[in-house]
């Protein structure tokens, strides 16, 4: 222990010596110092213009191979590059023809380099041709199992039943459509595969009909255009250009048309707009507070430097951080900039100390400032322990900003203000701690009562992992999406079992294997796979040979006889089923073998993807835990398969982020306690300094519970920031009590808290949920922490540590 104390004393001497040296150097080379600082700052600003930012969301996610693979797939596949335009007909006197005309007008006017393709539907007259082609392709997809079922159906009873159904269909309204199928597929062997395509299209797509080559809703009041764009969802600048272009063209449409735009790009823009608006509000409020402080308290334009220093610090720190950690996340930079702004508190302390007693007072408060700096840095250093790379960047950036700020405040700021004959102007306001309003005991008792109440309230607090808290898009976007879902019956709540392989043939084989496993674990209606209607070429060739052999053997002749015999009862003609038999024996043709039917194009797009990373085949199933678990079990047995579940991914990202924040909170808490003990060298003083931290944490948790809010990751991060600030208030007040600093500490703490509370309170008006929760946390935390620091610490100090003291 004595060695430690001796070592610490030595270190203290070295630091003091270093400080004196630096002070002396800066005093002598004042102009050179200012020049150097200006040059460094200018270089930093200049470098900032060429700095690149990393918008990748992965930077802000815990390191996890499955997340990375899922995100890579979602990013590379064409799921995220779609924007849907839903045109709605308002006028009662207008028809679907007017709607289609408007859709065509819009489609033609939308041409832009940002739009790769516009899908409007399919041309109806091609559908029948496509169906014909598909029925010719069916022998390639009839498996041995299916053929066995066909064999069982070739019997007099079943044939008679089928022919009777065909006859009844000919009497009905839709006979014209049904006739084709009766002639080409009297027993419905092939038509059932057509139904599979319909099921696949309906299971994940929209409820739509085709009219004049357009997607038209069932009520004929809506038409849909699907745009494919080269603009990434994260590319907000181009997303804005694209959406603005679309909106401009929509304005040119007739009055009786309403258009809803649906797509992820809108969320990007809306979040950016809302954040900008919220930040503008905050900047305005903070500027106003700054002006009031400048006019009423500091009474000097030069005091503006106190507020400029954090901005300069973040600019310099960003350069250093990007040199060491590569491209920074803009989210991290934004958050770190806010934290850097908090260092203005140290500036206020130093400025007020200079006002009250020049450099002598600055030297006196340097120690508590450094204690505050180290504990605050400790809080943010805890982010180095995170597995999230963005958090590690945050730790470096905040610590660098604090170091640069404090360097400017302690060494540069006093040099700039130093004038031998002239005192720094300051307000002649007496702002003392009016502790005598309440007696010390009454004050402590009141604090215990309030804190106990909030500790009780905090028992009911909840933690929410809902990832939607990060999406602050405007209500109109969510409303449009809801309208779209109702209108088109779009079902987006599906998870994916993805097969991956370097070639298309290989991925189809993996998909077939997955399909077999899925059939064992899922009911047929619980999943959608293209494997049954689009197997690998190898399987298709095998199926075709089997089919040919099956009919050539005896079954073709047998069925022909049965159709003739049973058909005569209903008046079927001799050649009624000629088209069926013609196609039966021509399916071995080479061209049929190699070509994919056009009808599959529509579904293939959804089930098969080709990206730079390879070929993917997707099986869809409901995004519910029970199904996701089953699919995971299947994929775990195959190296080439993985599961993507938006719900479980969102949940596990939230959970991981929540756990990460909780872990960091523990580390930060421990670091605060250890650093405070080490720096204050007294358990009792440490406990007093920690009092505002403990108070603010319980007030926040209890306050959230009282307000009916759940704690979430943004509020937890804000709690860490609050803890970093409150420990500063605690340290300052403890030092003020113990060493009687006479450096206007109470005023400095009050001003620091007031500016932060004001800034935080403005966030209560924020529309974006993340900012709102940060605002609530900051407002409650800083206010309660300040009260504890300013009023409870002096009272406790007098009662517990210095009962005879007069302060």
């Amino acid at each position: 222990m004595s060695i430690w104390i001796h070592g610490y004393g030595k270190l203290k001497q070295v630091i003091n010596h270093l400080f004196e040296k630096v002070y002396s150097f800066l005093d002598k080379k004042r102009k050179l110092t200012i020049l150097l600082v200006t040059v460094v700052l200018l270089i930093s600003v200049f470098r900032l213009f060429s700095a690149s930012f990393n918008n990748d969301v992965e930077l802000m996610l815990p390191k996890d191979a499955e997340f990375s693979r899922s995100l890579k797939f979602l990013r590379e596949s064409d799921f995220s590059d779609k924007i849907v335009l839903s045109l709605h007909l308002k006028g009662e006197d207008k028809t679907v023809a007017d709607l289609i005309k408007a859709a065509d007008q819009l489609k033609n006017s939308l041409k832009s380099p940002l739009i790769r393709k516009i899908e409007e539907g399919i041309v109806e007259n091609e559908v029948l041709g496509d169906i014909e082609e598909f029925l010719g392709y069916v022998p390639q997809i009839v498996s041995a199992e299916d053929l066995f079922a066909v064999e069982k159906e070739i019997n007099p009873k079943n044939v008679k039943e089928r022919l009777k159904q065909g006859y009844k269909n000919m009497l009905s309204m839709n006979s014209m459509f049904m006739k084709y199928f009766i002639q080409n597929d009297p027993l419905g062997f092939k038509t059932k595969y057509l139904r599979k395509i319909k099921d696949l299209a309906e299971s994940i797509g929209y409820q739509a009909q085709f009219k004049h080559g357009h997607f038209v809703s069932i009520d004929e009041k809506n038409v849909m255009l699907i745009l494919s764009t080269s603009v990434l969802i994260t590319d907000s600048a181009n997303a804005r250009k694209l959406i603005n272009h679309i909106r401009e063209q929509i304005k040119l449409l007739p009055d009786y048309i309403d258009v809803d735009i649906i797509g992820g790009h809108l969320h990007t823009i809306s979040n950016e707009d809302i954040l900008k608006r919220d930040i503008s509000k905050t900047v305005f409020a903070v500027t106003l507070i700054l002006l009031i402080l400048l006019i009423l308290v500091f009474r000097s334009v030069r005091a503006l430097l106190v507020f400029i220093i954090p901005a300069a610090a973040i600019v310099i720190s960003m350069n250093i951080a990007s040199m060491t950690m590569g491209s920074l996340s803009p989210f991290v930079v934004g958050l770190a900039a806010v934290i850097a702004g908090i260092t203005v508190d140290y500036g206020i302390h130093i400025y007020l100390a200079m006002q009250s007693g020049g450099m002598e007072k600055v030297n006196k408060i340097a120690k508590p400032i450094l204690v505050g700096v180290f504990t605050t840095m400790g809080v943010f250093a805890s982010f180095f322990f995170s597995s999230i790379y963005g958090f590690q960047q945050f730790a470096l950036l905040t610590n660098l900003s604090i170091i640069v700020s404090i360097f400017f405040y302690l060494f540069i700021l006093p040099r700039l203000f130093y004038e031998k004959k002239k005192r720094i102007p300051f307000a002649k306001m007496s702002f003392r701690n009016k502790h005598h309003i309440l007696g010390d005991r009454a004050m402590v008792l009141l604090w215990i009562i309030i804190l106990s109440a909030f500790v009780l309230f905090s028992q009911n607090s909840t933690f929410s992992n809902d990832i939607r808290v990060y999406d602050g898009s405007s209500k109109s976007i969510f409303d449009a999406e809801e309208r779209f879902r109702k209108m088109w019956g779009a079902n987006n709540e599906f998870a994916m079992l993805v097969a991956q392989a370097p070639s298309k043939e290989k991925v189809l084989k993996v998909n077939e294997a997955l399909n077999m496993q899925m059939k064992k674990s899922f009911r047929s209606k619980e999943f959608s796979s293209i494997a049954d209607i689009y197997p690998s070429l190898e399987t298709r060739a095998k199926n075709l040979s089997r089919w040919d052999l099956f009919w050539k053997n005896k079954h073709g002749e047998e069925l022909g006889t049965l159709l003739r015999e049973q058909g005569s009862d209903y008046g079927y003609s001799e050649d009624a089923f000629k088209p069926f038999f013609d196609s039966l024996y021509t399916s071995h043709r080479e061209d049929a073998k190699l070509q994919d039917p056009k009808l599959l194009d529509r579904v293939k797009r959804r089930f098969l993807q080709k990206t730079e990373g390879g070929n993917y085949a997707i099986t869809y199933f409901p995004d519910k835990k029970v199904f996701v678990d089953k699919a995971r079990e299947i994929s775990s047995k195959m190296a080439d398969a993985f599961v993507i579940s938006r719900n479980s991914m969102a949940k596990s990202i939230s959970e991981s982020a929540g756990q990460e924040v909780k872990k960091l909170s523990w580390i930060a808490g421990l670091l605060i306690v250890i650093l405070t003990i080490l720096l204050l060298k007294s358990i009792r003083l440490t406990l007093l300094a920690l009092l505002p931290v403990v108070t603010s944490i319980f007030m926040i948790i209890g306050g959230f519970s009282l307000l009916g809010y759940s704690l979430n990751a943004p509020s937890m991060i804000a709690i860490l920031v609050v803890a970093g600030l409150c420990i500063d208030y605690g340290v300052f007040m403890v030092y003020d009590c113990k060493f009687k600093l006479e450096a206007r500490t109470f005023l400095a703490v009050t001003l620091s808290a007031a500016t932060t509370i004001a800034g935080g309170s403005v966030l209560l008006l924020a529309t974006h949920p993340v900012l709102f929760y940060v605002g609530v946390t900051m407002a409650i935390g800083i206010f309660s922490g300040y009260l504890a620091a300013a009023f409870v610490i002096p009272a406790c100090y007098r009662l517990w540590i210095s009962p005879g003291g007069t302060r």
Partner: protein
Amino acid sequence: MRRLKIRVLILTILFIFISALDGICEESNSTLIKDLKSIEEKMSNITTLSTQFIEEKNLALFDQKLLIKGSLYLQKPSSFAWHISSPLKQRIILTGDVVAQWDEDTNQVQKINLASNPSFNVITNQMKRWVSGSYLSLIDEYKIEIMQSSPMKLKFVPFENSMAFKMIKRIVILFQEDEKYIDTIDILETNGDSTKFQFLETSLNVNLDPRVWKVKTSD
């Protein structure tokens, strides 16, 4: 110089001729729209319809003609009933977005939601249009020609890009003498098959027996 003058003259004459031709076409198109509107207006006064029909089908699928007898009921805005009495009792009742089907052979009622069965929706929509006289909305799908004006006889030939093009060669609709309702609908298919509807005992704007909307005859 003279050649140039001749060319200018020829071009001017051509221009005048084309403009005139265009005018004639526009005029004929506007006459058609006027006539179709007039039919729609007349038919729009129909709030309920009850008619018997005989449907004669000449299909290559069968050795002999299919002769279907039945009745059709329409109640605006969205109720439609199709009853077949021979050769097999069958009923199709459309109310709003739901179609109910029944036949005496199975005696089972099958219900289909049009929202989930777009192809059936197309068929019923087309049928409703043919029997309710909403021909103006068909102008984008068919080339419509007035074959005779009294009684009105219309010919519909599907455009190449329409769904009907591959199946239907032409449809001819003949109105009754008093032009109150349709007399016959004659459909010729591309493969030579044909279907002819003849409407008899047509009653307009009468109170319909509620039983016509029952899908099972025994109900």
